[in-house]
């Protein structure tokens, strides 16, 4: 037995030594380490021809002209489009994430009727029925500011004898109300930020979220000699690069502008309008620097200095934001200065019966919407306008699930901008009328269909598909389809603005600062990476959202140390902001770039529906905005919102 054992041991020893003289062991070791380099659960890459296909992306409010990068036909990235003036090679953080949103599990996969998946044919029937029943009590809320899809929707309304076309509240609307409404001007106002030698951004956060942001940034960069000044309640990202920040409360912006106009008039500037004298008298008497200083807290000499700079500048421009009055005042000032403000001609319509853009901007959504049948086109009123919309039956078109689609009766999936025909007609703020077009760069990954095409199936508007409408549009404006599809834009220069009046009496009344009753003023601000009223933040963007907006699941509000002392709160303190009809929870952050007596809160957080990147992150500031009506201007505004702050 002992022999056997020993033999066995020797055999084993021999075997062991033997195997070491073969590649076996070493090969196994090597292969194992290679295995750790290619774990099966780590996704692998796709290879093939790489192309950059031009199109438009409409995730940000003004839209970006982009090139979608594809490998073997599969989109993987988004880059800017040098050939297009609204991009010049750059894009915004939202559109930079376009492909990821396109592939998001949050996409709506198929038509849903009250939570039940249905076919497009069925959807067509349902809506047709509702449409017949609703008669003229049909309304449309559109989140699209630049698309020809709006023409289709408005044409449907016209067909039904309704004029209830609403856009989400935006500066384009306020500007139009002031310009065409109050001052009897024509065209769409634009600002030549690249050509101007002095730009006073009167509340317009132009280098972060206002207007055609990317185009603004491009102009800012190109405008080496020009001087940019930002006026507003907080030191926005715009203010971090402008040469100066003038602290002005949002509700005081109109008065502040007229305060500057005071010196400009004093210097003998005139405008060729019927009521110029009246206007001058009004400003001189009611908006003397002393009065403005008393009302807004902005030092008279500060306004004097600004006026001086504007007067010495050869091509200055004032860029307003917020209430109608602020826009009116700024336009008046621009007319006096005769600088880089432009009036853009509107592009010809593709559908004769459709509304003009100005007509689309008339209705005021803040006053509430009521209809039997409501179409919501890629807008999210349920999130940004709580309790403003009432409808018997709501049809929501969107590509991803939102608060609105969650509450709508019928949800119809839109193709992602990269999967459909769409266009960008003169985003508000550009100095020239600009038309860009987007064709699909890939097939839709879900059972989606273009909203406008669906609408065309409901009424005879002379077109079968939205693609045809786009074709008609390009024809109507006289642009070259191939050039447009190649990514170029069709551009018509803006003209010198002509106004019938300076709306003296209206501005006189409407420019008086109106403030809520809360303990501190509320300065809501928009950061594109946090999201807009219609588009929540995107998968990769949260990494770019700083802890000054969001910590964990808590929204962060910023205030100066003085305000913090006044409120008796410190950094990191958890507070409840109450204003309007709602409340918000937030953590306190000290930021000396906020005016005393003001709390700055980021818009776009606190979604209750959506993907893991936006849902339950922070709180929704739209809940605590107060709507005050600009009686004189016949409009309503969020400016002058105040809140009460309580520690919790």
């Amino acid at each position, binding site marked *: 037995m002992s022999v056997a054992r020993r*033999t066995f041991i020797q055999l084993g020893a*021999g075997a062991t030594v033997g195997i070491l003289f073969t590649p076996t062991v070493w090969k196994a070791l090597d292969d194992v380490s290679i295995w750790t380099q290619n774990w099966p659960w780590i996704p692998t890459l796709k290879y093939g021809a790489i192309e950059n296909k031009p199109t438009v992306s409409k995730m940000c409010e003004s839209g970006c002209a982009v090139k979608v990068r594809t490998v073997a036909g599969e989109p993987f990235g988004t880059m800017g489009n040098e050939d297009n003036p609204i991009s010049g090679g750059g894009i915004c953080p939202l559109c930079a994430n376009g492909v990821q949103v396109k592939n998001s599990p949050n996409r709506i996969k198929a038509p849903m009727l009250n939570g039940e998946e249905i076919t497009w044919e069925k959807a067509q029937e349902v809506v047709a029925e509702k449409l017949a029943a609703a008669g003229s009590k049909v309304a449309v809320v559109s989140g699209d500011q630049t698309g020809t899809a709006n023409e289709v929707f408005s044409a449907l309304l016209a067909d039904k004898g309704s004029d209830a076309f609403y856009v989400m509240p935006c500066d384009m609307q306020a500007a139009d109300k002031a310009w065409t409404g109050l001052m009897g001007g024509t065209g769409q106002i634009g600002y030549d930020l690249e050509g101007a030698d002095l730009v006073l951004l009167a509340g317009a956060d132009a280098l972060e979220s206002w207007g055609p942001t990317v185009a603004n940034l491009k102009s800012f960069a190109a405008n080496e000699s020009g001087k940019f000044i930002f006026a507003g309640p907080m030191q926005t990202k715009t203010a971090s690069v402008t040469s100066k920040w003038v602290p002005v409360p949002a509700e005081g912006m109109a008065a502040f502008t007229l305060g500057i106009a005071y010196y400009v008039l004093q210097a003998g500037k005139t405008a060729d309008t019927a009521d110029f004298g009246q206007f001058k008298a009004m400003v001189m008497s009611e908006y003397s620097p002393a009065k403005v200083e008393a009302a807004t807290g902005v030092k008279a000499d500060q306004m004097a200095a600004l006026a001086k700079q504007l007067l010495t500048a050869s091509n200055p421009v004032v860029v307003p934001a917020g209430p109608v009055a602020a826009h009116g005042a700024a336009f008046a000032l621009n007319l006096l200065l005769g600088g880089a403000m432009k009036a853009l001609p509107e592009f010809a319509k593709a559908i004769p019966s459709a509304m003009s853009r100005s007509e689309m901007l008339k209705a005021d959504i803040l006053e509430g919407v009521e209809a039997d049948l409501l179409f919501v086109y890629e807008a999210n009123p349920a999130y940004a306008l709580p309790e403003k919309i009432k409808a018997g039956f709501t049809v929501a078109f969107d590509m991803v699930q939102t608060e609105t689609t969650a509450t709508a009766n019928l949800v119809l999936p839109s193709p992602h901008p990269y999967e459909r025909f769409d266009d960008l007609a003169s985003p508000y703020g550009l100095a020239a009328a600009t038309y860009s077009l987007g064709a699909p760069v890939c097939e839709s990954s879900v059972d989606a269909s273009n909203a406008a095409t669906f609408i065309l199936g409901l009424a005879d508007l002379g077109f079968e598909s939205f693609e045809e409408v786009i074709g008609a549009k390009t024809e109507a404006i006289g642009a070259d389809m191939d050039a447009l599809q190649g990514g170029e834009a069709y551009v018509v220069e803006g003209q010198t603005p002509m106004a019938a009046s300076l709306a003296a009496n209206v501005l006189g009344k409407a420019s008086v600062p109106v403030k809520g009753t809360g303990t501190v003023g509320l300065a809501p601000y928009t950061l594109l990476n946090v999201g807009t009223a219609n588009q929540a933040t995107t998968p990769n963007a949260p990494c770019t959202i700083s802890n000054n907006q969001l910590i964990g699941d808590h929204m962060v509000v910023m205030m100066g140390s003085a305000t913090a002392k006044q409120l008796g709160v410190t950094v990191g303190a958890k507070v409840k902001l109450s204003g309007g009809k709602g409340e918000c929870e937030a953590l306190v952050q000290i930021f000396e770039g906020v005016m005393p007596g003001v709390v700055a809160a980021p818009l776009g957080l606190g979604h209750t529906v959506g993907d893991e990147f936006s849902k339950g992150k922070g709180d929704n500031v739209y809940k605590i905005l107060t709507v005050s009506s600009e009686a004189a201007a016949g409009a309503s505004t969020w400016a002058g919102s105040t809140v009460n702050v309580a520690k919790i």
Partner: protein
Amino acid sequence: MEERKASKRCGGVFPFIIGFLATCVLGWAVIPGLFFENEEQPVWFSHAVHVEGQGLDCESCHYFRDDGTYAGFPTNEVCAECHAVDPEEAMEAIAEEGIDPTDYDAIMQAELGAIEDNLASSDDDMLQAEREYVVKYLIQGKEVPWLNYQYQPDNVYFSHASHMALSIEDLAGLKKELSDVVDPSVFEGEAPEQNCNLCHLKDIQANNVPPAFERNILSGYSKTTMKMWQCERCHALKGQPNACYTCHK
């Protein structure tokens, strides 16, 4: 007592040698083979038929794109230039026949005109192979998942453009040094003007039935996947950089 003698007699060496030899043989002859499993290409593709038969040259399928990248395997788009079956037509035909478009066998049995009329092959086997390709991939809009004998993982960036100038003739001088990097037989006889043989299957253009793809069961690599040291050896010999980022991504 008995035991002692026993062990003395064979000195403990004999069994040792037995064991040693046994595993040596196993380790060299048998085990290495066990690391690999054979896989056939998704469809039978005969280079011979296309090159000799149809007189195609390499570039008609394997070419450089304008951006300098290399189109290794041809896409359906390229194949469809000859295999002119219109997917939409075919799919309609399938729909008419009431066949499930994913039921390949049924489609092939049905011998639909929309497909058959556009098949080019002469003999039956080839015809079947072509039909298989058309039905399973072309009309389905799916690219063929060809198996790459020279497969490299995602962390490797191989540039065909930077290697296109290499000539087998010049390299013949390094035949000895390269013996375990390049198959020596490549340097024998008249050197072709193209250098594909250096790394790819020798004279693949004349191949009729592609060999099986030998997949490493642990790493998933191809048996003929070039190892890092081989790339480095040649780079060193040719005075090319061996910096990490020369080849990795």
